[in-house]
């Protein structure tokens, strides 16, 4: 089963890369962008076949390794 995870920076954390991407987009003529925040995307292929168990395991992975909860939030996408 494949489970996806999206990690984003929390609202108050400075994102210098997102800022530069925003500036660059602006310079390219995309002038209506309000803000860009950069994040991370993971696809985790697990042997677990039970939906809920798999999600719980991935949640543990997020807390222990994939995200740093001081600065990041994680969102687990429901497997299809």
């Amino acid at each position: 089963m494949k489970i996806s995870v999206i990690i984003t920076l929390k609202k108050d954390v400075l994102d210098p890369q997102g800022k530069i991407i925003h500036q660059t987009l602006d310079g390219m003529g995309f002038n209506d962008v309000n803000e860009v925040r950069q994040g991370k995307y993971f696809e985790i292929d697990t042997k677990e076949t039970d939906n809920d168990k798999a999600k719980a395991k991935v949640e543990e992975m997020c807390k222990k390794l994939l995200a740093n909860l001081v600065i990041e939030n994680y969102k687990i996408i429901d497997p299809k």
Partner: protein
Amino acid sequence: MKSSVITFPGSNCDRDMDVALKKFGFKNKMVWHADAELPKSDLVVLPGGFSYGDYLRCGSMASKSKIMQSVINFANSGGMVMGICNGFQILVETGLVPGVLLRNKYLEFICKNVFVKINDKKNKYFKNVNSEVLEFHIAHNEGNYFCTNDQLKEIEDNNQIAINYCDENGKIEDQFNPNGSIKNIAGIFNKEKNVLGMMPHPERMIDKSLSGEDGSLFFINLINNLK
């Protein structure tokens, strides 16, 4: 005094640290990250470098390596653990010291000498250092110290800030902040002050003719405090 320097895949300041520790009297051992047991040590150092290529987040992979459980136990039982640069990033990922290290504010890799002001001397690292300001070297891409407001309050209440970026006279101002760190923080302690994480490299300032000697001051003082 016995010290151990942990080598992770991608560490590159481990041998410099070995040279520095030996120069000032430590009997140092190099310890491989995949070992489970720490040799008997009075000081454990997590050196600078790019452990695991800075994958995921700087220090995140190294913080889960086999030797780190022993290092964490050692620190929790009061052992002296010092993380320099990438070692600091590893320390924040273990949670031994609070906060995180973000990309530098202006997205530049910074490699230069800086001045830092010692904020607290009631600890074994800086007690008796005969100077308020030290000149150290920094070389990092992710040294922008960040923590939540609650953490910052706790850090300040417990006097956990070790050193702040400043000018040569010890003035702590925005213009002397190289990387955007909150409150110009260059290094912090855990609550008990046996764990120190800092971005500057004292091991690069131990030779009069090559660099400067403020690192020498630091190490001579450190070994005397541990005796």
